[in-house]
């Protein structure tokens, strides 16, 4: 599968990273999201916005098969990653997650040293180099997350000794240390103060050069600041009394916020609901 995906990566580098086709997502018999189809372009920041319960995080977690951890989860339709369906039976979810990294809502460093937090990913993925090469990789990853200058003198201290914003950048460094192609971010700034948020946003703009970034955010200003494309998800009540999420509109960020086609999008981005 590795070679397969790698080969396809080279062939179709420019067009589309993810192509979601007619996705319905269920938890048990409960349909959480319906009829999602969209294409996510490479080396851009795509943001998912929408009211609570619209399924934006659910969709994000499908992109690296992290929803597999939930037993009652299942999905119909296709999620193509460079043309390869991630939910084909011969796909190894562990390999998927190595190529498609994730940063979570709350900073979640491992209870290990700063150094080991970064080195963990490469080690479990069979890093062959010696200590010097690992040192270099740790330094490179921390520099990429713009954290190196703040932590270079205390690499052997616990990851928990850092502030919340630093911890989140540590988590980003940890994600990029395994050299993924995509970094998924699930409300990465919602637990952070404004200054840390700004730093993470600047970091995202830099990471865009090298990675494809998909971010879920509740903060619409954040979406307008960082995202090239924005998907607005909405939720509607169903006959059975629950709610089901769907993709209401997907376009360039300027269009979504400046000239939305759908009434629901307009209402949401102008703060009428949500």
């Amino acid at each position, binding site marked *: 599968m590795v070679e397969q995906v790698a080969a396809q990566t080279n062939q179709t580098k420019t067009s589309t990273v993810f192509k979601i086709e007619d996705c319905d997502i269920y938890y048990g018999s409960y349909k959480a999201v319906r009829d999602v189809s969209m294409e996510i372009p490479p080396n851009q920041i795509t943001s998912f916005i929408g009211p609570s319960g619209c399924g934006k995080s659910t969709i994000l977690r499908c992109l690296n098969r*992290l929803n597999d951890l939930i037993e009652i989860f299942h999905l119909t339709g296709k999620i193509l990653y460079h043309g390869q369906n991630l939910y084909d039976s011969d796909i190894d979810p562990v*390999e998927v*997650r190595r190529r498609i*990294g994730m940063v979570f809502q709350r900073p979640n460093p491992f209870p*290990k040293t700063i150094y080991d937090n970064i080195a*963990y*990913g490469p080690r479990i993925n069979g890093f062959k180099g010696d200590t010097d090469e690992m040192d270099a990789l740790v330094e490179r990853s921390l520099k990429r997350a713009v954290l190196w200058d703040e932590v270079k003198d205390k690499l052997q201290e616990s990851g928990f000794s850092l502030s919340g914003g630093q911890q989140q950048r540590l988590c980003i460094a*940890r994600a990029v*240390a395994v050299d993924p192609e995509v970094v998924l971010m699930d409300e990465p700034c919602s637990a952070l103060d404004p200054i840390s948020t700004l730093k993470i946003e600047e970091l995202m703009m830099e990471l865009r050069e090298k990675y494809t970034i998909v971010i879920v955010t509740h903060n619409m200003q954040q979406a307008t600041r960082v995202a090239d494309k924005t998907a607005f998800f909405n939720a509607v009540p169903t006959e059975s009394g629950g709610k089901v999420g769907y993709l209401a509109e997907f376009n360039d960020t300027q269009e979504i916020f400046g000239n939305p086609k759908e009434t629901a999008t307009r209402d949401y981005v102008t703060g009428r609901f949500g």
Partner: protein
Amino acid sequence: MTASDVPNTRSRTAGEKKFDGFFVGLTTAFAIGTGLLLLAISFIILMAAIPAIREFGLQFVIASTWNPVQDAYGALPMIYGTLVSAFIALLIAVPLGLGVAIFLSENFIPLKIRTVLVFMIELLAAIPSVVYGLWGIFVLIPAMKWFFGLFGLQFIGPSMLTAALILSIMILPIIIAISRDSLASLPPDLRQASLGIGATRWGTIFRVLIPAAVSGIVGGIMLALGRAMGETMAATMVIGNSNQISLSLLEPGNTIASLLANQFAEAKGLQVSALMYAAFVLVIMTLVVNILAQVIVSNVKAKYD
């Protein structure tokens, strides 16, 4: 805002305040009382042991004769037996218990079956130790005789190994329950973080979850060790109660707790004092184990905080 909207600012009555003070005093007294209980028990044992301490001094813990007829007492075989049987019990129960704890804290099987299993394991802890002893005599020993018979070995039955096996079963529920709790109480973020960078499930369990839960796991193991060292009834029924040091685990041995249970009823004079001395040694040993556990746990924690 009208007067009726003002929150109730009535001050607490003198009685209420007094009751608060009384309550604090009462709980303080209970807490101190429990601590004093430990000191009182240790003190009484020490007092009763003084004649033997005068007579034998530290020689007591390195001598290996236990002869009530000549009033010559040394507890080395029992100290050895206590340590060896508890250590072997740990050797068996730790990997087994940790494995079960991992299995039960992950979703390998449906929650309903897991809940039943957890309940049954906790019931293991509720079986009286004399029942374990009986089971040892009537089931385990014949089974071991048969097993060693396959290799042409003569196996008499009561032995250090039999006792260690029984002890390992008895301490299993402690290790499982505490390890499972500390694994289950880890934040789910940790697991997701590890899986999210492409770790396998096993990699996540062994390289992230167990290190993060290690202080709870070590605490559970030390608690189990304390239990194994102090266990009396089951040990005395299957260990053979022979005051000798034998390197073979298939030979009978003795533990301090078992010695006390066997000899106290008929002991007189200096023998009572010697038994008290042995009891005091046991108290010190379990105390050392517990302090050791605290030190290990706080060292491990200090590494991460």
